[in-house]
């Protein structure tokens, strides 16, 4: 326990120092890593811990991003205010989607969420909504500057803003999942009939899981909109949802640290794949996915856990 706290403290210190050591471009990339980590944490709560497969989380990511963009563009809201609003909107949207999802199991839920992910870009382009969403043109957003005249450039400020929110979201998740709620979610995933028999209100937990999961991914979406400064329907197609799935599988299901490993994977591996072969980057992604499922089903987080356990048990 103490060792974990120490490790996390060291990680945080490194995280705070990085923007001053690396280039602005890298800082920007690391900001994106944190955004993905938050999104993956959201998906992991739902799919990893609670066993509800979602192939459409890109839709909540888009919802959060567009919330932020519309508020900043149409209502002139300051960027930091858009994050809690995006959180609230996605919490409700996720919960509402979770209600009918209660009746869908495994593959059928995957199918329904797949359909959601595929249909989302078309909804975003819908002409009658275009005066808010910008339609096919999308919405361009201004980049926030450091407040109070702090000696940080825009990239660094955004990094710290994202870091603060990400840390808060991770702490919240850790609290939620390590206690009764986490155990209830896992129980519902593994033995849902027994869980019901033991008095766990499965319907409430499952819908709530959907809502919380959507909230996390929506917050990530809002942060991404602020970082990229542009939202458009083309940014949120089905591949975003698939990439998130890859992230949690590789990172490690039902693991909080897994979200971070997965985020590092989905941010940096495509760039590496680009160097290997321009022609088939997705093929390499696919091979990695299958490889992890066969060889490391608990993901990187699980592998690390095994390694540490082995070292502890050996004399």
């Amino acid at each position, binding site marked *: 326990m103490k060792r974990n706290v120490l490790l996390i403290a060291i990680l945080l210190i490194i995280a705070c120092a990085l923007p001053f050591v690396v280039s602005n471009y890298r800082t920007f990339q690391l900001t994106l890593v944190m955004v993905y980590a938050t999104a993956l944490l959201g998906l992991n709560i739902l*799919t990893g811990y609670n*066993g509800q*497969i979602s*192939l459409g989380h890109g839709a909540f990511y888009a919802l959060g991003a567009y919330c932020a963009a519309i508020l900043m563009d149409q209502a002139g809201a300051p960027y930091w205010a858009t994050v809690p609003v995006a959180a609230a909107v996605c919490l409700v949207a996720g919960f509402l989607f979770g209600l*009918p999802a209660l*009746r*869908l199991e*495994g*593959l*059928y839920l*995957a*199918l*329904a969420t*797949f*359909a*959601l992910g*595929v*249909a989302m870009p*078309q*909804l975003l*382009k*819908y*002409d009658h909504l275009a005066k808010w969403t910008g339609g096919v043109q999308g919405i361009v957003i201004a980049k926030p500057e450091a407040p109070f005249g702090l000696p940080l450039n825009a990239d660094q400020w955004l990094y710290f803003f994202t870091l603060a929110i990400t840390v808060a979201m991770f702490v919240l998740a850790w609290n939620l999942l390590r206690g009764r709620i986490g155990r209830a979610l896992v129980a519902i995933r593994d033995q849902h*009939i027994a869980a019901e028999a033991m008095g766990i209100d499965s319907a409430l937990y499952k819908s709530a899981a959907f809502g919380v999961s959507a909230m996390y991914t929506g917050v990530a979406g809002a942060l991404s909109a602020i970082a990229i400064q542009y939202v458009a329907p083309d940014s949120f197609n089905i591949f975003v949802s*698939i990439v998130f*799935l*890859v992230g949690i*599988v590789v990172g490690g*299901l039902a693991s909080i640290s897994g979200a971070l490993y997965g985020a590092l994977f989905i941010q940096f591996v495509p760039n590496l794949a680009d160097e290997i*072969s321009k*022609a*088939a*980057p*997705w*093929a390499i*992604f*696919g*091979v990695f*996915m*299958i490889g992890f*499922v*066969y060889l490391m*089903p608990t993901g990187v987080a699980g592998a690390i856990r095994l390694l540490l356990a082995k070292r502890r048990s050996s004399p």
Partner: protein
Amino acid sequence: MDVVLHQVLAGLATGGIYASLALALVMIYQATHLVNFAQGEIAMFTTYIAWSLVNAGVPYWPAFGITVAVAFALGILIERVVIRPVENAPVLAVVVVFIALLVILNSVAGWIYTYTIKSFPSPFPKEPLFGIRYMSPHELGAIGVTLLVLAALYAFFRFTPLGLAMRAAAQNPQSSRLVGIRVGWMLALGWGLAAAVGAVAGMMVAPIVYLDPNMMGGILLYAFAAALVGGIDSPMGAVIGGFAVGVLENLLGAFVIGNELKLTVALALIIGVLLVRPSGFFGKVHVTRV
């Protein structure tokens, strides 16, 4: 009224496309109780194999036959090599493998054949049949082929011992093993047949929508909707579902909600059916024992 009729006919034509891929989806489901997200890409890939053959000078029907055989072998190969290791893994692992197959096949097809669209030949005559102008001879022929495949599948599952063995293996693997059915090979056979049906679907669809690696991407979602509406374990339901989805989508798009929300219609259909009548109109209702 004429206008509505034309849209209905056009809808039947597109519906034929959905029906043929939906058949492959149902085929896989009947054999393995799995929803295969990669079915469209397997169909697309095997159609490219057919294209290569035709391009090399092989006449249409021999190329067709060879492709179906190759597809069958490919299906078995995928089952043995890719799916077998995750047979008993949790559902999520299976879904991940399917998605991985989807992106790999799509990428590799694009890499080998490039993304420029290609024409694919049609074995049917070019002149409008019976003076019907709203469905081309190919579209009519494709529907005919789909119905033939449907009939063949129906006969296979209903009347042959092998078909019975396959259904048994999917429904109750343990008991099937006890009566001597080689469950593993039944699954492989199911995949092989599904891939073969998919290849036929691809070869019927390509002349209409033109061949490119993303050909099946748009169709897959509608095919899922069709399979669900008709009943994911009923081949006849899949075909009827396909036509229903095609006509519904056209009528709604032309007269009610405009063309900009067609995918949303598919989404609504899928969710609606799953909630209200998960076994579809023609499927069997499943009861799970606690």
